[in-house]
C-alpha cells in the first residue's frame, strides 16, 4: 500500500513536468508581458527598460527561461510577483487558506445535503419526496453559480441587507464579533458553491443507491430478516459509497475551477481571484505558481480517489 502510493507519487513527477512545460510555453507565446506598461511610459528611458528586462531574463529564449524557472522552483524559490512585488510563495500562502476554507466548508455542506437526500430519495423512488428532491436538484444543477451568486447578493445583501457582499480579509477586532463577521461574509460564497455541488451529487448519490438497491445481495440481506434501516446503511450505502467517494475526490479539480468564478463574484481574496488578476496583469510567475499548485492538488486528489476506492472495495488490491 505505502509502496503503491510512493510509486504513484513518482509517476506524478513526469506529469507535473509535462504540465509545467506546456504552461510555460503557452504563457511565453501569449502576447504581452508585465513590462508593456513600462514600455509605453515615456518617463522610463529605453536603456533602463532594457537593463531591467535583461536582469529579469525576459529576453532569453523560452527554453532557457523555462529551465531557470524550473531550477529556481526546485530550490524552493517560487519567484517574485511583477505586480505585487512580493514573493510568490508568500502570496499563495496568503490566499490559499481562504480558498481552502470556503471550498472545504462548501463541500461539507454539499455532502450533508447530497448524502441524506440522495439516499432517502432512492429508497423511495418516484415518491413525492423523490420528485421534489429531483426537481430541486435539477434546478440547482442547471443554474450556474455566477447566476445564483448574483441572485443571492441581490436578495440577501441588497434587498434584505443581512449579509455583506464584499469579502474582507482585513476585518478589524477580535474574539466572537470578529469571528461572526467572518462567518457572515462566508455564508453566501459557501452556500452558492455548496448548493450547486450538493445538487449535482444528490443526483449521483440517488442513482448510485438505486443501482445497488436492486442487486441480489440486498435481497439476501432482506431475507436474513434485517430491518430496512440496517439494510440501507450497512448493505446499500456502504456499497453505493464506493463510486460516490471516487466521484467526490475526482470532482475536486472542477470544484477549484468553479471556486474561481465564485471568488470573483463575492470578491473573495482567494487563490482564484489571485489567478485572474495575475492573468490580466501578465504576471507570469504568479500564473505559473498558482496553476502548478492546482495541478499538484489535482494529482493528489486523483491519488486519494484511488486509495479510497481500494480501501472501500476489498476486490481491489494494490500491486
Amino acid at each position, binding site marked *: 500500500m505505502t509502496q503503491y502510493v510512493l510509486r504513484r507519487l513518482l509517476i506524478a513527477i513526469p506529469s507535473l513536468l509535462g504540465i509545467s512545460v506546456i504552461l510555460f510555453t503557452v504563457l511565453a507565446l501569449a502576447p504581452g508581458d508585465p513590462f508593456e506598461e513600462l514600455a509605453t511610459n515615456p518617463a522610463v528611458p529605453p536603456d533602463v527598460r532594457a537593463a531591467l528586462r535583461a536582469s529579469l531574463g525576459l529576453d532569453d529564449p523560452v527554453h532557457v527561461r523555462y529551465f531557470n524557472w524550473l531550477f529556481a522552483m526546485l530550490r524552493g524559490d517560487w519567484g517574485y510577483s511583477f505586480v505585487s512585488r512580493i514573493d510568490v510563495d508568500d502570496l499563495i500562502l496568503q490566499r490559499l487558506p481562504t480558498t481552502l476554507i470556503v471550498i472545504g466548508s462548501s463541500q461539507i455542506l454539499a455532502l450533508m445535503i447530497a448524502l441524506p437526500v440522495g439516499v432517502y430519495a432512492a429508497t423511495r423512488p418516484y415518491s413525492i419526496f423523490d420528485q421534489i428532491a429531483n426537481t430541486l436538484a435539477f434546478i440547482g444543477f442547471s443554474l450556474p453559480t455566477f447566476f445564483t451568486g448574483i441572485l443571492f447578493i441581490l436578495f440577501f445583501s441588497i434587498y434584505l441587507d443581512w449579509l455583506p457582499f464584499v469579502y474582507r480579509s482585513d476585518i478589524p477586532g477580535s474574539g466572537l464579533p470578529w469571528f461572526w463577521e467572518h462567518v457572515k461574509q462566508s455564508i453566501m460564497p459557501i452556500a452558492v458553491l455548496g448548493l450547486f455541488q450538493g445538487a449535482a451529487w444528490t443526483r449521483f448519490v440517488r442513482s448510485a443507491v438505486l443501482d445497488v438497491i436492486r442487486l*441480489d445481495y440486498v*435481497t*439476501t440481506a*432482506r431475507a*436474513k*430478516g434485517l430491518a430496512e434501516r440496517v439494510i440501507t446503511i450497512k448493505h446499500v450505502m456502504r*456499497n453505493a459509497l464506493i463510486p460516490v467517494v471516487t466521484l467526490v475526490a475526482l470532482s475536486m479539480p472542477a470544484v477549484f475551477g468553479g471556486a474561481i468564478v465564485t471568488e470573483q463574484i463575492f470578491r473573495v481574496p482567494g487563490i482564484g481571484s489571485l489567478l485572474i488578476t495575475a492573468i490580466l496583469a501578465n504576471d507570469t510567475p504568479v500564473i505559473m505558481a498558482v496553476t502548478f499548485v492546482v495541478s499538484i492538488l489535482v494529482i493528489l486528489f486523483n491519488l486519494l480517489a484511488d486509495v479510497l476506492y481500494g480501501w472501500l*472495495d476489498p*476486490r481491489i488490491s494494490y500491486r
Partner: protein
Amino acid sequence: MTEGMTAERDTGAAATARRLLEIANLKVHFRTDDGWVRAVDGVSLGVDRGETLGVVGESGCGKTVTAMTVLKLIAMPPGKIVDGTIHWQGRDIVPLTPAEMRSIRSKEIGIVFQEPMTSLNPVYTVGEQIAETLRLHEGLGKRAAMDRAAEMLKLVHIPNPSRRVNDYPHQFSGGMRQRVMIAMALSCSPKLLIADEPTTALDVTIQAQILEIMVEMKERLGMAVMLITHAMGVVAETAQRVVVMYAGKVAEEAPVGELFANPRHPYTQGLIRSIPRIDTAATHKVRLEAIPGSVPSLLDPPKGCRFAARCRFVMPECLDAQPPLREVSPGHKVACIL
C-alpha cells in the same frame, strides 16, 4: 418413493400439524406500464415437515415469485398480493407486519437464490455475513457468531473453514459461494429451506455436489425443503412430492413416483418426455423448452386452459374455462379436463 403417497392420505389434526406451509389460491400480480402481469394466478401448494417438495416449470411460470412471496420479499409496489393465503405453521402471514415478517425470515424459513455470484455482499467477509444472521436471530456476540459461522462453513464442506471465514466473496468460486449461501440460510436452523434453482448457475459437476450438501443438511437438521428447479432429473432424485407449474398456475401435483409413472397433465407428460433417462438425468441440465410453442402472455392470459395453445389433446371445452385442480387419485391432483 411411496412414502409421500401414504403421508398424503391421513386426514384431520395430524395432517394439519404436519403441514408447515400451506399456500392457498395465491395471486401475486405486478403493475407494469402495459397493465397487470399475473405472475402467480391462483397457486395452491403445501409443504409438510421434513419433506422435500420439488417445484418445476419452465422459465417465467412464477416459481420465483411464489417462493419470494412466502417471505414477502417481493417489491411492493410493483408487486401485489391480490388474493389468497399463506399459512405458516397455521398462521396466515399475508397480513403480518414487516416486523413480524422479519422474525420469520432466516429464523424459521431460509432461502437460497439462483445466482451465487451476486447474492453475497462484496464488501464484507463471508464470516461477517453469516454471523450477521446469527447475531440478529440467536443474539450471539461478535466472537461467538464468527465461531458458529466457521462451524457452518465446515458443515457445507468448505476446506479450511476457520481461515476461510475471513475471506471475501470474490475469493470463492461459484460453487463455494453457493455453499456459503446454504450455510447462511441454515445458520439459524430454519424449519423450511426454500432453494430457488440453487444449481442452475453452476457447473454440471458442481451441481451434484451442491444437491448432495443440501440433502445432507436436510437430514442433519430435519428441515423441509422447497426445491425449485428446471430439471426433472433433480426432482426425481431429491423430492418426495412434486408440483408442476405452468403460466402462473399449478398444472399437476403428485408424489414423485406417481408423477413419473402416471403423469396426467399433457404438459407434465411433455416434461417427462424431454428427459433422456431418469436415473442419469440428474447430472444433465435438462432444459424444459423442449415442448414446442411458448408460454401465453401473463398480461392477458387466455380464458380457458393456459396450456391449450401447445396441447396435443386440446378440445373445444378446454377454451371455455380454466380447468380446476382436481384430485384423480390420493395425493395426485391435475388441472386438466382429460
